[in-house]
């Protein structure tokens, strides 16, 4: 038993542990915030932009980097939109002053 562990196995370890973490964290989310949860997870999954950045930055403007640039644009919509719309919703859940008159 010598040699290095295959990266795929390491990835698998990370994956399984992350699913466990996700499972426990998400069950603790209050049902009232399930819509913001969705928009927030949406924003988080657009961290895929990291892959797009790597693809786009090669010197030659070929198929790969073009795809990367388009992917950056798409993911950026989600990064900005996801976090900002979550913030907007969460602002609504702020505790109001006890006798705050709406007028």
């Amino acid at each position, binding site marked *: 038993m010598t040699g290095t562990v295959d990266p795929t196995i390491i990835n698998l370890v990370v994956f399984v542990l992350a699913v466990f973490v996700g499972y426990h964290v998400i069950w603790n989310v209050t049902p009232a915030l399930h819509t913001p949860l969705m928009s*927030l*997870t949406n924003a988080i999954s657009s961290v895929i932009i990291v892959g797009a950045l790597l693809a786009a930055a090669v010197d030659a403007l070929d198929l790969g980097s073009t795809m*990367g640039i388009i992917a950056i644009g798409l993911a950026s919509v*989600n990064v900005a939109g996801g976090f*900002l719309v979550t913030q907007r919703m969460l602002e609504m859940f702020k505790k109001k002053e006890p006798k705050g008159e709406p007028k």
Partner: protein
Amino acid sequence: MTVNQVALAYLVASIFFILALKGLSSPESARRGNLLGMIGMALAVLTTLSIILGGRLEFVFLAMLIGGSIGAFVARRVQMTQMPETVAAMHSLVGMAAVLIAVAAVNNPSAFGVPDPMPTGNRLELFIGTFVGAITFTGSVIAFGKLAGLGKHFRLFSSAPVVFKGQHLLNLALALVMVGFGVAFFLATDKAWTPFWIMTGIAFALGVLIIIPIGGADMPVVISMLNSYSGWAAAGIGFSLNNSMLIIAGSLVGSSGAILSYIMCRAMNRAFISVILGGFGAAEGTAAAGADQKQVKSGSADDAAFLMSNAESVIIVPGYGLAVARAQHSVKEMADKLVKKGVNVRFAIHPVAGRMPGHMNVLLAEAEVPYDLVYEMDDINNEFSTTDVVLVLGANDVVNPLAHQQGSAIYGMPILEAHKARTVLVNKRSMAVGYAGLDNPLFYMDRTMMVFGDAKKTVEDIVKAI
């Protein structure tokens, strides 16, 4: 930065993402959670930019600027009632981005630090990331169309299920062919564009085919499921690029969507598989058979106002009808007036009220209903029997006592036990049945008074009369 430093920065970003989701456990900590998420994302993007500083960046920044502006604009402008379709649209973008990145990875693996030609292990993961991404994209586009009510313009967007003979067999056959080309891509030693494109094309088609048979009212499950898929697509891409942060973020999102799907299915007492196979809800909107033989008591908005202002406690049960009528602001006004009269007003929310998980809570929060007046089903169900008046606004199946009756189509579905209250007021537009196509005995009880009319109009009339 060295490779190790980059990996550590990504680890910190991943922890920020976990803390962001943890923040959502209560409304007090949620805003801080979102902020942590933003910091994590900024860290991830800046770290990656530092790696690629040597390359061509003008288009990179241009794309980020354009995309970011569109996102910010949409986030500011979108109506809360439009959140479900907005979220669906965002899922589609993640899916498409995953596919594009996969194309780039096949074309030029070395940009990602993966050997060229790509090793078989990475190919397998790339295949998974690509087809999940492609299904997420087209599936979300269809879901978007259904949620945005574009069925009039394009039949596939119809909120009624689109079914045809042999649908499931066709899907199965396509899935098998797709896997076949995936294997060809996996075994190839060159770039293998042909199997890659074919399998991606089939995945795009499958995304359309698996969402069209699912009816409009099952949308809370569909949108959660696509949320999950977008996460798994990101994780798949993370696998093929050997990027732990992508795997962690993707897994968090994937499990989040999966849990939400489970919660939605449980709240409808439906098996996930039967939702996915679709076809349910085809009979939506048909009138209840024999409804006119049974006697309902109906009253005016004035009667409802009188009953509620003389009650000690009122529970309001908002449903999808309220969201459609955009009556949440009038409801808030009504609640305020009742509270001023000394009535104990609370809101009871069923998990599937609205068109996506938690949708009703957001609509009420938008109308500035304090969230401590808003109760989840399990927290308030014991309170109905000691409540004077329950006002059901645009909800039907979620208060149908048939759910307690063995043998009925919705037997076992958890409901809000409105029928236990001393008086039940039900606002509906007509006697049409709900999504499950069942008659509702709640409407015929002696203690029930129906108030027919549009939810918004009725509530406004009640406000005037109080």
